[in-house]
């Protein structure tokens, strides 16, 4: 087991770009900060990100797949290399560093105020090897491959402190910690101007994973303490168990002699006083006089309720299960501890066939419990007369069917795996084939008789039918009402004409037209439905 400490420390660090006095103060301050994490050099604009770490720790830089968002201008940039480049080129120190720089300046001011002294290191030029520097001449060109700018007043002229070649201002706009021999050194306190190629080629520039180290030994150390305690407890309990078994076996042999079993048990472990507690040691349930009575664990001596107690088998030889001589009681915690080792051994000893067979059994039990439910649902679905059935029950049935088929598939796979296992003898082989046969018979009985779900269309048709008949009924009722109204209106109309109320007659006529239109509409709909 090994634990990795993934660390992604991003330092929007701050390194003043000009070589004036002020900046070297900042440098010193920063150096203190950065030297905390000396393992990898992190520079101001060198944002080292790991995808995982960024999710956890980065808030200013968000990660979308492989896209990074620049923390300063929010531009989306592909890949870490591009991001670093972007930060190097677009965000010069005066832009990006400002906020952080000002914070550092403030803190420095405060520290100065407190100490009342300014450090004078700023005046001391750090010593560095300059012997490899390229000599300056009149006709110099920037050594950066794609640049080739004429060096001079306009483009600037600067030796890279690292490789010594001459570059223009733009391509020496980077700083790195260098040792006195002008080699990259993250432990060095001094920052120097370097060219872009030196800067980007240094160790850790493209390190997207961050620093990691193994913490396994810490874990092991921590675990050791725990395990020791546990082993101690286990040994103690096993000792007690053996003692119990021994004394009980003695008791068995001397059948005639009446020896108090309780006295023997109490001699193994001090029993807790009944009056000492009112609650179960494990679940804190209250003891009563009649209900929930007290019981002593024979291994730890504490008081427990009936639910937290288990039967503890006693063997003459703890490794041999056939030598059972009796049972007593213990809390389930103690029992687990005592038999933990044994259980683990038996599990490992279990042959492959047995394990697979267990799984097959488990899957079969699932099928057995689900099949009746599924059939019931199918029956419901197939009953057309039961009115509209919801989509829910159809989906539920589909879900059941899916699960069933999954289980069948699983059983099939497991039985095939059993057949592939190596066999030691003829009988072993027979056993394997029989298990496989059994599962196949199970599949034949259940899977092949598994009914298909009614087609969705079929259901829709049924639903539609029901809706249709409903609608037809509605239409018939409406038609009847309309016809009644029609004859009523005809009567009113005749009356109005008779009484020479022609404006009323007009209104009634309109109404009659409305009604006839409505009747026509319904007739058309009825025909459509019947068609």
């Amino acid at each position: 087991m090994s634990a990795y400490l993934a660390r992604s420390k991003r330092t929007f660090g701050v390194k003043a770009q000009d070589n004036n006095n002020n900046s070297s103060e900042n440098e010193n301050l920063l150096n203190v900060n950065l030297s905390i994490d000396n393992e990898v050099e992190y520079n101001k604009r060198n944002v080292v990100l790991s995808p995982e770490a960024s999710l956890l720790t980065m808030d200013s830089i968000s990660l979308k797949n492989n896209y990074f968002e620049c923390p300063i201008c929010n531009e989306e940039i592909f890949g870490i290399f591009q991001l670093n480049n972007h930060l190097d080129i677009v965000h010069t120190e005066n832009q990006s560093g400002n906020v952080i720089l000002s914070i550092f300046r403030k803190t420095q001011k405060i520290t100065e105020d407190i100490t009342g002294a300014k450090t004078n290191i700023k005046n001391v030029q750090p010593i560095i090897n300059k012997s490899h520097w390229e000599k300056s001449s009149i006709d110099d060109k920037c050594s950066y491959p794609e640049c080739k700018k004429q060096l001079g007043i306009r483009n600037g002229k600067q030796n890279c402190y690292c490789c010594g070649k001459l570059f223009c201002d733009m391509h020496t706009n980077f700083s790195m910690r260098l040792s006195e021999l002008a080699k990259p050194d993250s432990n060095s306190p001094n920052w120097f101007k370097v060219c872009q190629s030196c800067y980007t080629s240094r160790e850790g520039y493209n390190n997207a994973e961050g620093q990691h180290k193994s913490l396994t030994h810490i874990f092991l150390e921590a675990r050791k303490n725990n395990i020791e305690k546990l082993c101690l407890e286990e040994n103690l309990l096993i000792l007690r168990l053996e003692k119990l078994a021994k004394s009980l076996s003695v008791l068995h042999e001397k059948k005639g002699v009446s020896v108090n079993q309780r006295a023997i048990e109490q001699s193994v472990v001090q029993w807790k006083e009944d009056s000492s507690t009112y609650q179960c040691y494990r679940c804190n349930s209250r003891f009563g006089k009649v209900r929930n009575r007290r019981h002593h664990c024979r291994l730890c001596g504490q008081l427990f309720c009936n639910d937290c107690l288990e039967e503890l088998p006693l063997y003459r030889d703890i490794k041999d299960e056939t030598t059972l001589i009796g049972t007593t009681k213990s809390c389930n915690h103690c029992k687990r501890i005592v038999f933990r080792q044994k259980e683990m051994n038996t599990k490992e000893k279990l042959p492959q066939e047995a394990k697979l067979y267990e799984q097959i059994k488990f899957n079969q039990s699932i099928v057995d419990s689900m099949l009746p439910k599924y059939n019931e649902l199918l029956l419901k679905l197939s009953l057309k007369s039961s009115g509209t059935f919801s989509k829910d029950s159809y989906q539920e049935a589909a879900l059941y069917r899916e699960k069933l088929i999954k289980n069948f598939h699983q059983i099939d796979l497991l039985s095939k795996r059993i057949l592939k296992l190596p066999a030691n003898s003829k009988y072993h082989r027979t056993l394997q084939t029989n298990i496989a046969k059994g599962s196949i018979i199970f599949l034949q009985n259940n899977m092949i008789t598994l009914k298909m779900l009614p087609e969705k269309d079929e259901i829709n048709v049924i639903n539609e039918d029901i809706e249709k008949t409903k609608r037809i009924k509605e239409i018939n009722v409406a038609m009847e009402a309309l016809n009644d109204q029609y004859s009523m209106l005809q009567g009113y109309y005749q009356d109005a004409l008779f009484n020479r109320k022609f404006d009323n007659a007009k209104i009634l006529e309109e109404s009659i037209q409305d009604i006839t239109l409505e009747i026509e509409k319904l007739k058309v709909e009825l025909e459509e439905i019947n068609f």
Partner: protein
Amino acid sequence: MSFSGRNDAAASNMKPIQVKLVLLGESAVGKSSIVLRFVNNEYQDNKEPTIGAAFLTQRCKLDDRIIKFEIWDTAGQERFHSLAPMYYRNAQAAVIVYDITKPASLEKAKTWVKELQRQANPNIVIALVGNKIDLANNRAVPYEEAEAYANENELLFFEASAKTGTNIIEVFTELAKKIPYEQILANNKNLNSRPGQNENGRVNLVDQDNNNQENGQCNC
């Protein structure tokens, strides 16, 4: 408000404004009785249920306007429910009636209100009328409850009795006051580009003559 008579010469010369009014409500709450009281000032015991929708008219004078109510008295029975939309569709006023002795009828009235709010003309003026206050001894719907509901839904609210005639005229008067006539007139102008002529192109002389002959006048 006064109902047009022979003496109102000036008023009778004006073209009456037609207002389509629809009565809705559960069966046997007294819709037809209310209309009968309003139109003929009569009352019949044990009236047989309406079939479909009955049509009646009544002229009223409000301020200097003549309003002609075209009343569609719909049947309350469930089987005629499908007819109702035809009549409330372009109605300007609706009277929703419930029976103060039957709480279920108020519930039905509430469903009618909802239906109208959803499907009828948005400018429709709705009055909620609790009928049968002559049976106040058997009252099952408190006045306050119905009033609160009416206020909540911005309905006119009355309790009335078709049997005794209490509050019947008031219902229609208040309705008439609330109707936005300008809109109706504007709509009518759009419909009949040549006023004074009916759709056959004839000058409508009948209306005025007819007006004098009308026997369904209100006596009050």
